[in-house]
């Protein structure tokens, strides 16, 4: 997909002015936060489970090569195939080869962020293979030629009237006068249209929430059941997964499952948690005849051993964006690539480069809510700061910002000069502020004063006030 992260600021301006989008974003604020809180409060062990989930993933990352080997061995033993892909291009080729060998014309797809990351749909289409998204949200945005705006609720940026218009535009074979005014009827229509696609597909592609080294199993977690129909009806099942999805054992997967659904949708357990191992067994009446796993690196191995390693604990629950004031304001598309919100602000620069995604780690109020709710205890704000540092080191910030910071640093390192400059500057600003003591406009601070006034300083510096009032403050404390 086309990367628009460099124009994050323009994207955001557009998003803030988009009334439809703003209405839809209200659903994020209203829905996810309360549901998560209720589910978390009902499980006293939740925080202990978070600690353990973190420990499990830290252990996996420190032994990743070994668990990858163990996992591969078990997949092969159960009759499946593991394909290793260093880059997005490699992964696309591997999928295409499997599809070609299966003479595939239609491919159904369960929800998979990795396939978005590697741009699989456009690629398959260009090669004459028709990909059909089957998750309701993914299906809707595929009809619109869009990309997901949220990692677990891909169409959260849309309202039902928009979906109705799309269904009328695309489902031409259905009666024109049908009633599609309610979400129920929209869901019913998608269900029946997609039923025939499942049966027609030659290959089904799903993602994976976990890969279990103990058994060579891939796990998907869904609510709709589309990921299951995608993998049991076609002859070939392909699993797309990135390296860090590995967990050692079935018990480890169980531990993390407990924090996943609660953090994502506030459910104790998602409706369908499906463990798939190899192709169908002799005597099995259904299930795929071939089972392939594509293991994608695409930059993850270089995050290991760096200050961004902890990001690889992420289980894609979406809680960080559900609780992010910036995401609430601008939605997911403004971030300009596959992964939005706080997790995207950390992951995107790692995967596509900080030169393109440098705005994202800056799009934060540092309120810290993302870290508070992250089930894997990923220190997202700290990592955003790391990116800001790297961005600065590499001279990627605009010149005015760099000079401004340089100038500030010069004074900050020389306290007497700093005090002198501020005690001279404040009375001037205070005078200029006029009777209202506010600025409607201030040179160099246009980004602030465009939306609100800047209060003029009170007349004395903090240090001056501290010297005078300090004695009495200290006396009171004592």
């Amino acid at each position: 997909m086309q990367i628009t992260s460099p124009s994050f600021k323009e994207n955001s301006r557009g998003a803030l002015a988009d009334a439809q989008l703003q209405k839809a974003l209200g659903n994020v604020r209203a829905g996810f936060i309360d549901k998560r809180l209720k589910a978390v409060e009902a499980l006293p062990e939740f925080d202990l489970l978070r600690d353990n989930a973190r420990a499990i993933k830290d252990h996996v990352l420190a032994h990743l090569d070994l668990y990858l080997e163990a996992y591969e061995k078990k997949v092969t033993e159960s009759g499946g195939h593991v394909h290793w892909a260093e880059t997005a291009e490699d992964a696309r080729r591997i999928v295409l080869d499997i599809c070609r060998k299966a003479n595939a014309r239609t491919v159904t797809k369960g929800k998979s962020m990795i396939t978005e990351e590697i741009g699989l749909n456009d690629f398959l289409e260009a090669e004459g293979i028709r990909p059909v998204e089957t998750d309701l949200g993914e299906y809707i945005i595929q009809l619109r030629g869009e990309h997901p705006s949220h990692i677990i609720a891909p169409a959260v940026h849309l309202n039902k009237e928009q979906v109705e218009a799309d269904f009328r535009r695309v489902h031409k074979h259905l009666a024109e006068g049908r009633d599609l005014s309610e979400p129920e009827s929209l869901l019913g229509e998608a269900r029946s249209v997609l039923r025939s696609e499942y049966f027609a597909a030659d290959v089904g592609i799903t993602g994976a929430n976990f890969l279990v080294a103990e058994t060579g199993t891939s796990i998907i977690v869904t609510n709709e059941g589309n990921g299951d129909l995608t993998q049991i009806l076609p002859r070939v099942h392909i699993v797309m997964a990135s390296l860090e999805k590995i967990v050692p054992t079935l018990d480890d997967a169980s531990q993390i499952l407990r924090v996943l659904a609660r953090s994502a949708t506030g459910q104790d357990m998602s409706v369908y948690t499906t463990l798939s191992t190899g192709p169908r067994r002799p005597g099995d009446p259904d299930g795929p005849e071939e089972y392939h796993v594509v293991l994608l690196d695409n930059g993850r191995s270089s995050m290991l051993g760096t200050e961004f390693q902890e990001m690889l604990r992420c289980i894609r629950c979406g809680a960080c964006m559900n609780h992010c004031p910036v995401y609430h304001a601008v939605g997911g598309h403004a971030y300009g690539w596959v992964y939005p919100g706080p997790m995207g602000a950390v992951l995107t620069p790692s995967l596509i480069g900080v030169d393109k995604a440098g705005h994202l780690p800056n799009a934060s109020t540092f309120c810290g809510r993302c870290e508070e709710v992250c089930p894997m205890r990923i220190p997202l704000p700290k990592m955003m700061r790391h990116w800001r540092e790297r961005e600065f080191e590499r001279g990627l910030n605009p010149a005015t910002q760099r000079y401004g910071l340089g100038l500030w640093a010069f004074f900050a390192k020389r306290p007497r000069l700093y005090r002198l400059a501020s005690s001279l500057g404040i009375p001037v600003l205070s005078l200029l502020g006029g009777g209202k003591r506010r600025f409607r406009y201030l040179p160099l601070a246009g980004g602030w004063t465009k939306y609100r006034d800047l209060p003029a300083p009170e007349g004395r510096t903090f240090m001056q006030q501290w010297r005078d009032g300090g004695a009495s403050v200290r006396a009171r404390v004592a």
Partner: protein
Amino acid sequence: MSAREAILKKVRASLGASPEDGARREAAEHRLASPPRGIIPARGQLGDEERVVLFCKMAEKVSASVQRVERAEDVPAAVADYLRARNLPASVRMGGDPRLEAMPWARLKSLEIKNGKAGYEDEVGVSHASVGVAETGTIAMFSGPGNPTTVNFLPEHHIVVVDAKDIEGDLESVMSRVREKFGKGQMPRTLNFITGPSRSGDIEQKLLLGAHGPRALHLIVVG
């Protein structure tokens, strides 16, 4: 160098790990050989009857309907009642699970039973769960010759029989049972954990039942 070698080499280089490091290998092998249990929520750690009661309560909370019968012989009549109450045709899809086959279906003269995997046109599926999980009201279905996975997903109504003595307190206990039944490191092709009927919140975050899987999940607890 193959992609496999290249990736493993990069991972090791980033971690600063050597393939000869015996302590690392031992740590990983040890975890695989004896999986630690982790944190087990107190919620499901109950006596036999309380555990079944919790299972039923949690399943109802996620919009499944639940019915308890005393003996396996009572199941066919319960299925017939379900169909009648909802005006459904007297026809069910029912894999070929030996536990189901042993029940007295022949007493119900008018009920059509179709064996094998489910298809497009099946409205009602009947399956037997292998395990129940009390902490979340979840059922675990192992695929196999008598247990086609399609029956769990294609019909609009899914009726699942679960034996009260197969209801465990927590998810990890199911994993232990899997190891016992299939052998360590072995799995059935598909293990479905099912918690309530299919649903979607993708349109304006409004929760609707019956997305792609069954619209209704009916659990019959035996014993």
